[in-house]
């Protein structure tokens, strides 16, 4: 049995690595998260300027751990 | 219910409407509503009403008695006043 009837007209021309989309997606969340952290730091510093020193450590920490998620997304394609 | 029958047919559509089930459900619900409405809810309502009657009616009766007592007291005082004159 060998019934074939095909009328294709394909014209595909795609290139690239899916890892780029992976990084792109991984950058969405941290991009927003980092923004939220610094926005909170700016707001609280403006209201209580004397607390700037106290909270600066945590602002940098929050920024670093959120950013780390994006950088991990940068590494994932290499080890997968 | 035999296995062959099950195997023979396809799967049942989970959102199909077997009219037998609709019918049985409707009859069951109708019976439930009728029996409860006829024999149960009126009894509860009666119990509620009696209870309210027992408490509020009792209080109302007490109030009435109190009013009577007050009337008697007033009458007594009036008579007392009249007697003193």
């Amino acid at each position: 049995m060998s019934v074939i009837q095909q009328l294709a007209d394909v014209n595909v021309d795609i290139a690239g690595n899916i890892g780029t989309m992976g990084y792109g997606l991984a950058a969405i969340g941290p991009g927003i998260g980092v923004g939220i952290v610094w926005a909170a730091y700016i707001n609280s510093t403006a209201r209580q300027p004397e607390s700037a020193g106290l909270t600066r450590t945590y602002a940098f920490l929050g920024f670093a751990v959120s950013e780390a998620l994006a950088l991990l997304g940068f590494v994932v394609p290499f080890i997968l | 219910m035999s296995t062959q029958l099950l195997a023979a047919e396809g799967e049942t559509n989970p959102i199909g409407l077997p009219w037998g089930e609709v019918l049985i459900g409707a009859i069951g619900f109708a019976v439930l509503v009728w029996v409860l409405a006829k024999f149960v809810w009126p009894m509860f309502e009666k119990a509620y009403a009696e209870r309210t009657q027992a408490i509020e009616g009792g209080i109302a009766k007490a109030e009435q008695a109190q009013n009577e007592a007050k009337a008697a007291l007033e009458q007594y005082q009036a008579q007392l006043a009249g007697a003193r004159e």
Partner: protein
Amino acid sequence: MNPVLSAATSILAAEGSGDGGFAPPSVEHSFFFDRLSDGSVIASVKAMVLLVLGVILIIAFFLASARKAAVMPSKMQFAGESMYGFVRNGIAIEVLGGTAGKKWAGFLASMFTFVLVLNLWGIIPFAQMPVNGHFAIPVMLAALVWVVYNAVGIKKHGFLGYLKLQTVIPGVMPAMHILLIPIEFLSNILLRPFTLAVRLFANMFAGHMLIGVAATGTIFLLQQGGVGYALFVLPAAASIFLVFFELLICALQAYVFTLLTAIYLEGSLADSH
């Protein structure tokens, strides 16, 4: 694997170890294993038996609790009364107001207990099938609600008056009505019974499938042995947690169904939108 344990687990599973892969319970397995012929008349005999049994149980319970309704309630009477009182005071009178609420309290209480008991069959051992997971029952109830709230509205306002009540939002600029009337008609007249039925059905259906997946997963991991002994605790714990969650969902869906019925009735009886 220990032969004794193996025998035990294979009896528990009652479907052999199969080809080794995990086979989740199918819809047929969970809901339609005993349909009559092609299932177009009755898709599950067990569901119908449970339905009738449920009706009998409710009637028996309430008759027993109301048989000699006294001023001083017995425990039985207190249980029945508080259930009725919950619907009467918490739903009917609160939503519909005093007079209409007392009038509809019986219907709403019957509906609440009916839906609740039929839901609860899903977690009671040996029954273990929520009858409302069969689409026919919620559809029947929702159709009834639809007929009732439309009939009540039409009786009170007349046909055109009722349509105007349900579709016209007062105080809006006239041009907006071109958009609003179809949308309001759709969402107030057509979609209400539909969502009422699907909400109840889908929740009970999903709950039962979830419990089934957790239970078969537990058995599967036990049969697998090895790392399965370490892992079976997770689906086992999940299936116990799910019984609690299902109790919450059963009660909640019965409450939501009854309350929405009351709200729709109130919408038909209201004087303005």
